């Protein structure tokens, strides 16, 4: 029971955390109505993953291993790019908010609905198939024993609750603190997603070095332990990490986090109209 529970928890957390933070972002940026676009993407990803997973489990159709890993790898990298863009863009458009967005910022946010749906889709869908396959095998086993399915759904449910709690908690933060810390958290999570994507591409043979480990701490942190599951589900830490993963993780995290935490330059000139002085 516990093994299946931890897998469900880990897989669920990986998606729930990103979605929760993005949803909180939308509320804090003054556009709670945009959450529905995020939801559209998330629901689509769940539906597609479950459907594809069921097809692969219950029919004779198969998906090549390389295609599966390549999708997971590229989708993860896409998720990182989109989330990073969103984090910086939302902070920029939310600054100077006095309750209403004006002009271009408002239009951009409105047009970003499609982009939000894509982000939601990729954030959940990148590992969606793997999770769906796991869930369907637990379902298949329920003919003999219900324990795997109970464990799996309990794990996923707990992850959803954790995401919800994180969302509510983040909303309580003051505006400045919210954007600083929640944005930083999302960048750390994204770094983990990048490392995961690199590993998938290594397994697919698209990137080299799947067996060249930078470190192996499986003795201290067994992958099937609860702490390993939590670490993997949140920051994407794996007890066996390849060099490519470590380099990609650091090469992303250090510059992006530095750029994000750097204080924003004070915006020049007041927006109110004034006489234009000519210089000769």
């Amino acid at each position: 029971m516990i093994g299946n529970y931890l897998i469900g928890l880990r897989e669920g957390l990986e998606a729930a955390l990103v979605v929760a933070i993005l949803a909180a972002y939308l509320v804090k940026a003054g556009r709670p109505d945009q959450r529905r676009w995020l939801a559209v993407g998330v629901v689509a990803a769940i539906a597609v993953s479950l459907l594809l997973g069921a097809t692969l489990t219950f029919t004779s159709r198969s998906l090549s291993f390389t295609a599966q890993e390549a999708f997971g790898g590229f989708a993860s990298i896409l998720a990182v790019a989109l989330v990073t863009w969103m984090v910086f863009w939302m902070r920029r458009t939310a600054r100077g908010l006095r309750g209403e967005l004006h002009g271009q910022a408002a239009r951009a946010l409105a047009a970003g609905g499609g982009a939000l749906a894509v982000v939601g889709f990729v954030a959940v869908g990148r590992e969606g198939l793997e999770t769906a396959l796991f869930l369907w095998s637990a379902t298949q086993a329920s003919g003999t024993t219900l324990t795997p399915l109970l464990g799996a759904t309990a794990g996923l449910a707990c992850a959803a609750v954790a995401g919800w709690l994180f969302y509510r908690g983040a909303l309580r933060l003051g505006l400045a603190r919210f954007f600083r810390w929640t944005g930083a958290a999302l960048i750390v999570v994204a770094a983990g997603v990048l490392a995961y994507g690199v590993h998938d591409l290594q397994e697919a043979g698209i990137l080299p070095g799947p067996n060249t480990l930078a470190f192996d701490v499986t003795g201290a942190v067994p992958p099937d332990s609860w702490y390993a599951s939590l670490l993997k589900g949140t920051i994407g830490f794996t007890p066996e990490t390849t060099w490519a993963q470590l380099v990609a993780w650091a090469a992303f995290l250090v510059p992006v986090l530095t750029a994000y935490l750097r204080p924003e330059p004070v915006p020049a000139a007041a927006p109110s109209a004034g006489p234009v002085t000519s210089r000769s």
Partner: protein
Amino acid sequence: METPHTPRRATHRVRRATAPVVLALLTAAGAAACGEDSPSPSAAPVSVQAGDASCRVDRTELTAGLNTLRITNTGSKVTEVYVYAADGSIVTERESIGPGTGAEVTFEVTPGDYEIACKPGQKGNGIRQKIRVAASTATATPGLSPDDSQA
């Protein structure tokens, strides 16, 4: 309020076009990826009993082409099953096989030596079983012993 409109509008248009394009690309990739309506392998599935300290494979001689592993996790730990080629590259794998569950993995192989690895606890090199893939004898008649197959 005069602000430079042109660069903002250009990026705004690009952003608008990007989202549906990306979504379409993703869907297309997904559709293409699952469009493999592979014929069922002619050989019977290879049964893999993956335990906490064991990896039992019911046969070690396979035929080139499509093969299926029918994996059962008979232990209490989460396990993974990999098929490695002679050069160490991964032919196929299935991770996160929870205790009490199983999985079917279909993959394609060319003649050669391979290894099936069970990794209880999802770590390490795993418990390995060597398997050999022989060239498919397309003209073989059922009932004949494979005496005439290449070594």
